[in-house]
């Protein structure tokens, strides 16, 4: 099978189609008994003798009356008049999509204002996170701020301290770029062992959007910032938490750091920092300061609360690493994933996301036997620097237990580590920056479980 020529999706005919009906029965009967060698023989025999096509089609059987009632009896929407334009001034998803919600992980936090909601990665396509499903992390509650009253200030090691209105920021030359944002604590609960059931809770502090804004360097140059001696930049939020973080100067001078107002074609959502948010590509979400009110240029780092008490990584010897910023290469299979049920044996499209804070994704490999053997997945376009990349791989499930993993490599050559490798260096108490390979166990009953393997 040449992967390139195969369209993904359920309609793809599986190789079982080349087996006879009797052969299929035998294969599954023997397969259930665990005789994999028998399966290989059966396939070989089938390949030798040209077979009559035979659809598995268990999910879509032909009813005894000779046709599907959903085809034979025309529905109301085919025989009536539909709704008019602008019934919803701002359209909503289908009512059948109501299961897609960002959700809290029970017991994780005591208040909702200093908390997290996780994006439903298990049900998303492509690389863009719908803005309403973007994960949330608030430190002291969120606000819907009047943009006409919001101000942005630059001070510190600059020729002149400056203030800007949002109108003025939006007048400047803008860029639009796709980037992922991942909380440094994403996958934190699984550092030691399995703690949560689904990819929403293991990896859901992850989203990707097209952001529109002004490169911060443009604004710093406007204020005459001392880029030689001003090695560190403080970003500060305008909300109650007044979130502060030290921002790496090298990402600012490279033009990557943006003062953004746009997200996926509209303004930022209030939960994501409306009307101004700092975009720091490749760096953990806490640096993407929301409700951004101030940038200060200085010559020393700031040791703000969220880089001196939290977002510090405890190492085995008892030291904490401070100013850990980069989200290293990581990937996860989103289907099949924990808490899902596969409907039947047969063809599936294994699909997932890969990303790296150091650039583009170069390749992704997928294993269905717990990391013993691997196959290279297809990377779907676009493959962008410091953005999510979607990967897909054809898979025929034989109904037997399978452990699915993905392993990404970024353009620097860095390969996503196993849990054993990561814990070997960082121990199990780090909380932050867990980029280990994720395992999902597909059980014989079709249920998929979050597991870690030896």
């Amino acid at each position: 099978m040449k992967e390139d020529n195969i369209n993904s999706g359920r309609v793809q005919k599986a190789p079982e189609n080349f087996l006879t009906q009797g052969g299929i029965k035998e294969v599954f009967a023997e397969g259930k008994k665990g005789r994999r060698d028998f399966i290989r023989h059966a396939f070989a025999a089938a390949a030798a003798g040209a077979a009559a096509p035979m659809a598995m089609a268990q999910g879509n059987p032909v009813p005894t009356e000779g046709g599907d009632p959903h085809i034979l009896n025309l529905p109301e929407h085919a025989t009536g008049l539909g709704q008019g334009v602008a019934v919803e001034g701002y359209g909503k998803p289908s009512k059948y999509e109501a299961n897609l919600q960002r959700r809290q992980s029970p017991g994780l936090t005591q208040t909702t204002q200093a908390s997290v909601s996780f994006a439903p990665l298990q049900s998303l396509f492509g690389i863009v996170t719908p803005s309403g499903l973007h994960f949330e992390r608030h430190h002291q509650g969120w606000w819907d701020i009047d943009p006409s009253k919001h101000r942005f200030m630059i001070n510190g090691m600059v020729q002149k301290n400056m203030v800007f209105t949002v109108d003025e920021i939006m007048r400047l030359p803008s860029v639009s770029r796709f980037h992922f944002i991942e909380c440094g604590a994403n996958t934190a609960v699984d550092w030691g062992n399995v703690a949560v059931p689904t990819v929403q809770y293991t990896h859901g502090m992850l989203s990707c959007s097209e952001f529109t804004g002004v490169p911060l360097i443009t604004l710093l140059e406007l204020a005459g910032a001392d880029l030689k001696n001003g090695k560190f930049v403080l970003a500060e939020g305008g909300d109650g938490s007044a979130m502060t973080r030290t921002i790496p100067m090298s990402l600012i001078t490279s033009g990557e750091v943006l003062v953004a107002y746009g997200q996926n074609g509209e303004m930022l959502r209030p939960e994501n920092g409306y009307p101004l948010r700092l975009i720091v590509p490749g760096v953990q979400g806490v640096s993407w300061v929301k409700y951004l009110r101030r940038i200060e240029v200085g010559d020393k780092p700031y040791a703000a609360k969220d880089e001196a008490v939290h977002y510090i990584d405890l190492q085995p010897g008892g030291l904490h690493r401070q100013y850990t910023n980069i989200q290293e290469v990581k990937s996860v299979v989103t289907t099949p994933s924990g808490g899902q049920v596969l409907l039947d044996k047969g063809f599936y499209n294994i699909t997932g996301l890969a990303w790296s804070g150091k650039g583009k994704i170069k390749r992704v490999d997928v294993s269905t036997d717990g990391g013993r053997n691997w196959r290279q997945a297809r990377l779907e376009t676009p493959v962008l620097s410091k953005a999510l990349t979607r990967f897909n791989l054809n898979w025929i499930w034989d109904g037997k237990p399978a452990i699915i993993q993905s392993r990404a490599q970024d353009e620097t050559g860095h390969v996503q580590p196993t849990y054993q490798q990561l814990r070997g260096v960082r121990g199990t108490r780090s909380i932050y920056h867990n980029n280990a390979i994720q395992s999902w166990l597909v059980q014989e009953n079709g249920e998929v479980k979050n597991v870690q393997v030896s």
Partner: protein
Amino acid sequence: MSRFRNAVLTAALLAVASLASAQASKYPGVGRDATPKEVAKWDIDVRPDFKGLPAGSGSVASGQDVWEAKCAHCHGVFGESNEVFSPLIGGTSAEDIKTGRVANLSRTDYPGRTTIMKVATVSTLWDYINRAMPWTNPKTLTPDEVYGVTAFLLNLANVVPENFTLSDKNIAEVQNRMPNRNGMQTQHAMWPGNEFGGAKKPDTDNKICMNDCKPEAKVASFLPDFARNAHGNLAEQNRLVGQQRGADTTKPEPKAGTPVSAVPAATAVAAKAENSEGKAAMALLNKHSCTACHGVDKKIVGPGFNEVAKKYAGKVDYLAGKIKAGGSGVWGPIPMPPQTLPSADAQKIAEWISKGASK
């Protein structure tokens, strides 16, 4: 003709010159100078070298007064509570103050990590209390109150004595007694740029292997059966169409070979009736920050609304009065302060609680 052209040119040059003098910028008309008053109001950060620290002082005793009035209901009287936030104080020793390394951080069996165990810089405490505390009224403490609260916390951790007064003059000496002052390292590959001179190579070096890479994998960690439904029914957290469904975790796991019942989408959608009254109530609870202290179905600082609903079913007026007046002693030692919200809103919230407080 040429005279006319010269005139136009001169005018254009003059216009450019005047613009340039007003705004020596590539983007004329965008941005203006910040006034010293504006910068002073917003530039509140305090660095580890104490740049930005305003003059002032506060004693342990004065800090205790502020603490008990504005901080203890979330953090506990001794900064030890973990009911709302992680504990602030505990886990450090006199020896740690000498060495600047908190010994408990290297123990894998030590149950928690308090703020004082982790924080290396006293400036961080001052800066954060000043910018973000108290929880529901950030930036309302005076500098002297911030000095006092910081001194009180440091005294709880035995970093400063009971009769100590912390000030901008002696805070650098206090820095030299911080229990974890030597507990940070910045030499790693996770900061982009050379500012910290960290490592260039990442921690791990996995190789791409494609075949027979390891012995057969064994499951080493998984969720126990009793946690099956701990995150709610996963069937309701997956799309109703596609190559998968969510597992119905309200029921025990099916045996292998049992066909999965793919619930028709319409049935699943119809089953979810809207609770509009609950939604409206939740909006009010969020608007008036009630949820900072009360969960709908769990205790936070105060009782869960479901507990209140059980105790005071049908008592709308009593509940509306209590919301406005506050109270103490009914649900525990922490008092509920009187709330300033419109009576109509209090009435709506009280009605919702009295009917059972359902989301």
